[in-house]
């Protein structure tokens, strides 16, 4: 299966480990990535640009969709925020042909037109829906038995549920849990899994943002989690990068490694941890990996 790959800014910037792990994992799973189709695509706007100008955001995303359409490929994302922002933009564009036509006016100069046929999909959904769990199970070579993992979705991959197609694809609601179980680990359920990590207010209200990190990581830890897994690099940035701050704010040790979804999948596919830069996290994964008996 071939996809037009939309890596998003964060995997090309602050989370290079996500980018690397994605390429490794897709290679083994037979997900062919076209990295050229969207090379001139812009940021989705992350909801921030939309605050200032919604139409501008919709135009930029329509432009990206038009590029994927031109290449004749479905579009793959690896970030909850990219996915959510794209799904919401797409919902508005497809629902209103008049609006779409007026947006297309602004794409004309570049020779682009969005016809409304793209259905952007996060890698998580691609594994569960397009590849299917039977296929995925057949690829797992290393069962991560004994590992207890807390899922953390990121707001934009769960809300608004209608724009994200939860009605048509109810399995999306538990997709992370399906993967955790498929790799042989145990799910640690906790209410924070679909709440906010606090990243968007990191520079606006750092105190609240850090409190959110503390609440989620401590809750997961106290319920027995060895690590947390997320399909959102922004959540990763906050939950991993600011865990030391959370730890001092809460005055206790947390030490909960945060693993990107493709890194988890990669471990079960037998990919070496350092190939996925698992040794390049703020919260060390060393102990976790040694318990799994895979050298860091």
């Amino acid at each position, binding site marked *: 299966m071939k996809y037009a790959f939309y890596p998003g800014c964060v995997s090309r910037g602050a989370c290079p480990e996500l980018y690397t792990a994605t390429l490794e994992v897709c290679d083994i799973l037979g997900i062919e990535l076209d990295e050229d189709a969207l090379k001139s695509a812009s940021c989705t706007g992350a909801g921030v640009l939309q605050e200032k100008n919604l139409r501008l955001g919709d135009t930029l995303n329509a432009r990206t969709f038009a590029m994927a359409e031109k290449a004749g490929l479905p579009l793959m994302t690896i970030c909850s925020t990219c996915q959510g922002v794209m799904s919401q933009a797409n919902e508005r564009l497809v629902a209103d042909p008049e609006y779409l036509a007026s947006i297309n006016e602004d794409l004309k100069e570049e020779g682009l037109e969005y016809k409304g046929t793209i259905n952007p999909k996060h890698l998580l959904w691609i594994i569960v829906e397009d590849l299917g769990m039977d296929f995925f199970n057949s690829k797992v070579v290393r069962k991560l038995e004994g590992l207890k993992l807390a899922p953390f979705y990121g707001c934009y991959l769960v809300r608004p549920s209608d724009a994200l197609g939860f009605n048509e694809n109810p399995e999306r609601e538990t997709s992370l849990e399906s993967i955790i179980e498929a790799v042989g680990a145990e799910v640690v359920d906790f209410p924070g899994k679909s709440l906010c990590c*606090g990243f968007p207010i990191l520079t*606006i209200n750092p105190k609240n943002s850090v409190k959110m990190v503390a609440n989620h990581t401590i809750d997961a830890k106290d319920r027995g989690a060895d690590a947390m897994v997320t399909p959102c690099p922004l959540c990763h940035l906050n939950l991993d990068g600011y865990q030391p701050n959370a730890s001092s704010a809460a005055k206790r040790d947390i030490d909960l490694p945060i693993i990107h979804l493709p890194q988890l999948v990669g471990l079960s596919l037998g990919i070496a941890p350092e190939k996925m830069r698992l040794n390049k996290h703020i919260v060390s994964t060393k102990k976790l990996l040694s318990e799994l008996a895979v050298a860091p």
Partner: protein
Amino acid sequence: MEVKLSVRRYDPESTNTVSHYQEYQMEMDEASTILDALIQIREDVDGTLSLRCSCRSAICGSCAMRVNGEAGLACNTKVIDVIPSDGTPIVVEPAGNLPVIKDLVVDFQPFWNQVKSVEPWLQPAGEEPEAEYLAPDEDMLHLAGVVSCILCGACVSDCTVLEVDSNFLGPAALAKAYRFVGDPRDDADAKRLETLNQEGGVWDCTRCMKCVEVCPKGVAPMDRIMSLREKVMDAGHTNTNGARHATAFVDSVRHSGWLDELKLPIKSFGIFNLKAMIGLIPLAIRSQRAGKVPPLIHKNIPDVENVRKIFDKVENKK
């Protein structure tokens, strides 16, 4: 059908003042709601169960509570839709982020304080008209959603920021503020926007969409908060971390096609806010140490001129 309910109980007057869950099992009709089930418990099984309700038709806003962890109106939630597939009971809890008085009844005083603080009444200026204050239909259309608010508090119950900071105005009050800022007959915008720009106001929302998802009336409080942010900035309040963050973000996308994470925090704190910037340095040092470093030189995407052209075209429309 057979229904199992696990209800969170709390009685300040009992010797056991910790909340606990009590299970009930009963026979219910397929059309029944959670509220029907609770009333049946109170009437036939356990008269000590406290809850609030009145209209039973999603109008009065008194029955907001959490069902399976998510807020909603009990009278609007059908039992059959929320029965867990794994055979466990339906979990019913009081609304969150508000103090519990007893069982499913919470103290709404903090909620009313928030709503009152945005001065939710029309403040027109100038001469009083002879009859009513008139407004053209098309100017009122965008308020159709927000005037549907029944002040039930479901959004406040599940707001992720209120969970960590009770100073936040919260989704219901902010949606209410929008209702007046957006009303063509109201002339207190300048004062209102100034207050909303302060700490605890529009910039503290994380955009988590919880309020949009749980609101039973389609008020979409977060969307109103985003409109308020735009209005706050348009009114010239650009000297906050939030406004600077939004502006820096947009500038980065316009300039390079994508996000320059290195510059973003510096620009959002303001060049002169040394204290905040020093607060960020640990992450930079930590990333360095972990070998996890974003590329220092932020490259433009290919054909970035095309992105800039779109910015010009769309921004000119505004």
